[in-house]
């Protein structure tokens, strides 16, 4: 699914996840710093007490026991101390080294030699606690030291295992919660944007259905007072305006047609009546030619108005399902004798029924115009091939001939009004009308000269849409 909802929710989630992650990193470093500060304060206090005890206790046989027990007591004060596998505590050690650097007293797990070596190698500053890595222990110790009167050093170490454990559990809990929140956020953002965008899509679909002379429909609106509903309202107001100007155009063309046709009817009627009373050829000839001119004028009027309306995308359509294959066969049947009379050969290539949903009268006139055009302009002994193809969503009708082709000068503007070849005696509306009908049906027309010589006109019309594709065989009526 290539939807904007995906993109928006992905970006929003990414920004949210990064933001919360940064906040957590700050929070965690603050917590870690705070724990360390507390540990250091405890260590410094205890090591001072121990130093005091060690200094006051006489250096006799009991010295080891007294100081050792005080150190044990201090170790028990460590809060939330987990029992280690061995049962005795290995999270705290007490170490006294003599002035010569030898191990004088040791309380804790193991022999204490490793610790002493690590202290000697790393060097623990006497003024503030520092980290100490001891070989054989995965977790470093925090060690505070003090120097007593006899020149020996007392070291008190506390494993950082507890601190790390607390931070680890904090991280784990945060990660789980974070993932849940990010997922939830993603879901909420995705659903809400999708809902909003689905409304936009509805508007788009409705708007694309509107137009091409069907201006009654409106895009769906909601009662919510947000941007999307404003968009819908604005579109609808715009459609109101378009509809009203379209209506105005229709009123103008209709009244123009009506106002011209009524006098034309009267004139034609009077001419015909005078024709019936006229007797000799000298009198009738001008009347007959006047009637012919009048009919040409009428045809011009009709086509002009159609073309004008179509140029404004305002041609009114009465649609029904038409089989183009059937229509072409009937049309060719109608035109074939005239073509062969002029020495023209016509061939139809069609792969069977092609249903379009279109205005039958307009499509009939369009095809008749195409064939009239060929009939009028092709020199004798030419061949006209008509090909009908039904693609997935469009029907294409291609007319090719091996005549002289279009005048290159007019080819560019061939579908414009009043454009015609030099030797054409029409009113220059034929191809403009074909273009107008195709446009009204959301189709296209293209004209070109073939490389091998001759003209090529291709008309594309959209196929019947799914819901209206019930098939009926129209066009050719039989006698009752």
């Amino acid at each position, binding site marked *: 699914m290539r939807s904007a909802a995906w993109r928006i929710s992905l970006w929003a989630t990414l920004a949210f996840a990064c933001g919360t992650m940064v906040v957590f990193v700050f929070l965690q470093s603050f917590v870690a710093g705070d724990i360390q500060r507390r540990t250091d304060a405890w260590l410094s206090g205890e090591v001072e007490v121990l130093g005091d005890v060690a200094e006051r206790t006489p250096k006799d046989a009991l010295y080891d026991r007294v100081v050792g027990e005080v150190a044990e007591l201090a170790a028990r004060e460590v809060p939330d101390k987990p029992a280690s596998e061995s049962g005795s505590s290995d999270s705290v050690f007490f170490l006294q080294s003599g002035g010569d650097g030898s191990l004088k007293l040791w309380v804790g797990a193991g022999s204490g030699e490793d610790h002493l070596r690590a202290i000697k190698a790393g060097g623990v500053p006497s003024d503030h606690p520092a980290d100490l890595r001891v070989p054989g222990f995965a977790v470093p110790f925090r060690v505070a030291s003090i120097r007593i009167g006899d020149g020996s050093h007392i070291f008190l170490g506390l494993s950082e295992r507890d601190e790390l454990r607390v931070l680890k559990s904090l991280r784990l809990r945060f990660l789980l919660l974070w993932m849940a929140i990010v997922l939830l956020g993603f879901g909420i953002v995705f659903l809400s944007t999708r809902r909003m965008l689905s409304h936009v899509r509805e508007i788009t679909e409705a708007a694309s259905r509107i137009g091409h002379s069907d201006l009654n429909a409106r895009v769906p609106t909601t009662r919510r007072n947000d941007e999307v509903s404003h968009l819908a309202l604005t579109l609808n107001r715009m459609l109101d305006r378009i509809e009203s100007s379209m209506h105005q155009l229709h009123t103008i063309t209709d009244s123009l047609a009506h106002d011209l046709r*009524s006098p034309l009817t*009267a004139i034609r*009627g009077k001419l015909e009546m005078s024709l019936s009373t006229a007797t000799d050829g000298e009198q009738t000839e001008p009347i*007959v030619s006047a009637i012919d001119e009048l009919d040409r004028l009428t045809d011009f009027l009709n086509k002009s108005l159609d073309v004008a309306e179509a140029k404004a995308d305002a041609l009114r359509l*009465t649609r029904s399902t038409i089989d183009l294959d059937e229509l072409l066969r*009937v049309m060719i049947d*109608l035109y074939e004798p*005239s073509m062969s009379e002029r020495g023209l050969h016509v061939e139809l290539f069609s792969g069977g029924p092609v249903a379009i949903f279109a205005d039958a009268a307009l499509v*009939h006139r369009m095809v008749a115009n195409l064939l009239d055009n060929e009939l009028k302009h092709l020199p004798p002994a030419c061949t006209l091939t008509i090909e009908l193809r039904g693609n997935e969503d469009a029907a294409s009708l291609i007319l090719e001939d091996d005549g002289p082709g279009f005048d290159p000068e007019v080819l560019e503007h061939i579908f414009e009004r009043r454009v015609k070849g030099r030797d054409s005696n029409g009113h220059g509306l034929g191809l403009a009308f074909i273009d107008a009908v195709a446009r009204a049906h959301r189709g296209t027309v293209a004209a070109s000269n073939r490389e091998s010589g001759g003209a090529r006109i291709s008309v594309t019309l959209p196929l019947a849409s799914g819901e209206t594709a019930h098939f009926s065989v129209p066009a*050719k009526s039989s006698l009752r």
Partner: protein
Amino acid sequence: MRLLLVEDEIDIQSFLRRSLEEAGYEVEAAPDGKTAERLAVDNLFDILIVDLGLPDQDGITLILRLRQLGVRAPVLILSARRSVDDRVRGLEQGGDDYLTKPFALAELLARLRNLLKRNSPAASEATRLRVLDLELDLLRREASRGGQVLQLTQQEFVLLEYLCRNAGRVVTRSMILDKVWGMRIQPDTNVVDVHIYRLRGKVDGIGQQPLIRTMRGVGYVLKDR
């Protein structure tokens, strides 16, 4: 034949009245829908001509109203409009006919005669048509003249059948296009004429009396006497 002409344009009304009377109709004219309704209820007409653009109401509304009031006569609808209303198509399905302005008088008369004939009960379901020595077998789709079978294509047979059914009456090119090919188009070229020439070549043999006559500027007629 009594005819009611409903048309508000005085010019058109007057020339139509004259030509219709010349053609043998007894014409009553009404300039608006109200008058037309009164006349149609009080008198019995054989056929009506109704213009769609009446000053007081829509022509189709009038026709539907008259049908409700029990007027059964066929109607020829005249329209100066550009698009054909769906309701007009409906009426056409119901046996009425329509003609756009401007029209040829001959076309109008031909369509009137066609409507009258269509409406008469004698309209045959016969399987054979006979005009002078021309005979059409509608079941076997076969035509013969003076006993000689004519070699007609399917389309030529349909065309000849249409001419035979209207024997003695003028049929116009647009009527032929409408009824034989099912299209309301006005070709710029003489496509219908070429069909008639070809048909004439087969029907009217050398030495035979020509049956298919051209009425210049109007259309064609199949002679029946």
